[in-house]
């Protein structure tokens, strides 16, 4: 009998509990340490985005370098819904998630039989297409200025209703969404679906020969990841009360790749969570000291790619005595752009 005693895949693993407690108490300590409430909102939103993104990069080995498109589509869809239809938090979010899912599903039809560098280049191309549309389709997107004055609808739960005007209230809402995403994705990566994705990443040909329709799995995970990016985008446009083409740019798409990789997305579920935190702390702490903070963050990325593809999570695992997963991360990194055997 193989009884497999392991914490992996419980509803609420210890790391998640620690993270959620730290984030839940954030409104109490963020100002005393010299930062500000809105930072928490940004971090939580990008964590959602990064966790969804890492389903592709870390778990499936699919290099999506134009993922900002789906974040942007979510942001615009939420804004357009509030401005053109009526003010509704839930319907706005639903509309954003759906729009990003559909866009992701369409793009994935063109991508799912590609691999490595071809896949990566196609995602960049599609990202640029969406960016171009956002800039040029003035009547709908507002062009370079984007959508302005997007209302932040109140949170309606049955009979009760809570305003989200204050950043603390908004933070609590975004945190609740993040918690839900964390729990669901944790389930997903330990489910059969998640295990198949990881098998495909390691050896696509063999996965096919044991009977998995690899195309369907890639299509599904890409669409799902796009939908999660759209969810994050909707929260972002609610937070910013605007949506603009910047978030779709190649630059913004690159940032999420850097965050995920630096954090250790190749070896850990928590990689993007760590990477997002590091990025925003670099921006707000390093940023007060030097204007070149992004350069330093970029250098971290270079160092990670060259020497530490296992990222911060891998370094931590090594520190507590586990295998760092460096070779695993190396292979994953190398596999990203290789077109492999058939």
């Amino acid at each position: 009998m193989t009884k497999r005693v392991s914490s992996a895949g419980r509803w609420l693993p210890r790391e998640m509990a620690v993270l959620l407690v730290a984030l839940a108490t954030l409104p109490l300590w963020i100002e005393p340490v010299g930062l500000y409430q809105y930072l928490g909102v940004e971090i939580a939103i990008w964590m959602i985005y990064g966790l969804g993104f890492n389903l592709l990069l870390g778990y499936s080995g699919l290099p999506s370098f134009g993922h900002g498109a789906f974040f942007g589509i979510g942001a615009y869809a939420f804004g357009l819904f509030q401005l053109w239809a009526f003010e509704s938090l839930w319907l706005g979010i639903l509309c954003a998630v759906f729009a990003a899912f559909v866009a992701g599903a369409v793009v994935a039809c063109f991508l799912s039989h590609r691999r490595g560098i071809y896949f990566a280049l196609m995602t960049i191309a599609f990202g640029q297409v969406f960016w171009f549309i956002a800039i040029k389709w003035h009547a709908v997107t507002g062009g370079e200025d984007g959508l302005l004055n997007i209302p932040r609808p109140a949170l309606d739960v049955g009979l009760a209703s809570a305003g989200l005007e204050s950043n603390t209230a908004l933070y609590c809402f975004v945190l609740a969404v993040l918690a839900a995403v964390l729990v669901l994705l944790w389930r997903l990566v330990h489910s059969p679906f998640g295990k198949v994705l990881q098998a495909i990443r390691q050896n696509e040909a063999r996965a096919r020969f044991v009977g998995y329709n690899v195309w369907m799995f890639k299509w599904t995970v890409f669409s799902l990841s796009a939908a999660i990016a759209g969810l994050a985008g909707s929260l972002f446009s609610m937070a910013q009360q605007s949506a603009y083409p910047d978030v779709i740019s190649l630059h913004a798409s690159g940032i999420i790749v850097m965050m995920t990789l630096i954090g250790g997305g190749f070896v850990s579920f928590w990689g993007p969570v760590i990477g997002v935190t590091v990025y925003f702390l670099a921006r707000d702490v390093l940023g007060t000291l030097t204007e070149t903070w992004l350069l330093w963050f970029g250098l971290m990325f270079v160092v990670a790619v060259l020497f530490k593809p296992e990222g911060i999570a891998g370094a931590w695992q090594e520190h507590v005595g586990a295998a760092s997963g460096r070779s695993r991360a190396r292979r994953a990194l190398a596999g990203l752009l290789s077109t492999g055997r058939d």
Partner: protein
Amino acid sequence: MALFEARGIHKRFGQQVVLEHVDLSFEAGRLSGIMGPNGAGKTTCFNVLTGRHRPDRGRVTLDGEDITGLSPDAIARRGIARSFQVMSLFDENTALDNLIVALPEVRARGFDMFRRLSADDAAADRASAVLARVGLAGLERRRAGDLAYGERRALEIGIALASRPRLLFLDEPTSGLGSESTARLAELVQDLKRDHSVVVIEHDMQFLFALADTISVIHWGQVIANGTPDALRENAWVRRSALGGAA
């Protein structure tokens, strides 16, 4: 009718004709062998039969159903499993997890995004049993990439076996093994023969002649001989290549 039939298979890569009018049939409950020199087209033949390559001409049927040109996953889901000459494992997974993803009941719920796979003790037990059968009991937790060469060869077969196939294709399972491991593998294949229909490509004639019920010889992309081991011992090509007395 045979369980599996290939009729008139042609396959070329560019100008090079690799398979020319290949007819093969494999009976249920038998161990069929394929032999032939390096580069004869044996692996290509497996690749065509299991869906990696589409034949340029010809028909492949499983139990009467035409499966020509189906994708590898569609063919696998119909009950055909194969191992690879060049090993093809899930290197970062444990030995056990390599087999778990290959189980048909896991495959059937491949789109289940919610239930924890590691809580599925039945699947783990099944995979463990397969692991034990290929001689890797006790190595459940070892990363496939960290296994010794011979153990990886066994796991390679285990993955194919885990899907409980109706027909099992093994491509040079002894490739790279020493004599001791080859002997152990012969025992394993002998054991698999009891409850599986097997097709095995092998360059080791002794191995094949001892195990196979029927053997096909492929040379220059054509089947040049076909028959029981005893009948084939008289075959001119076999005699010539068996100089040194291997067969």
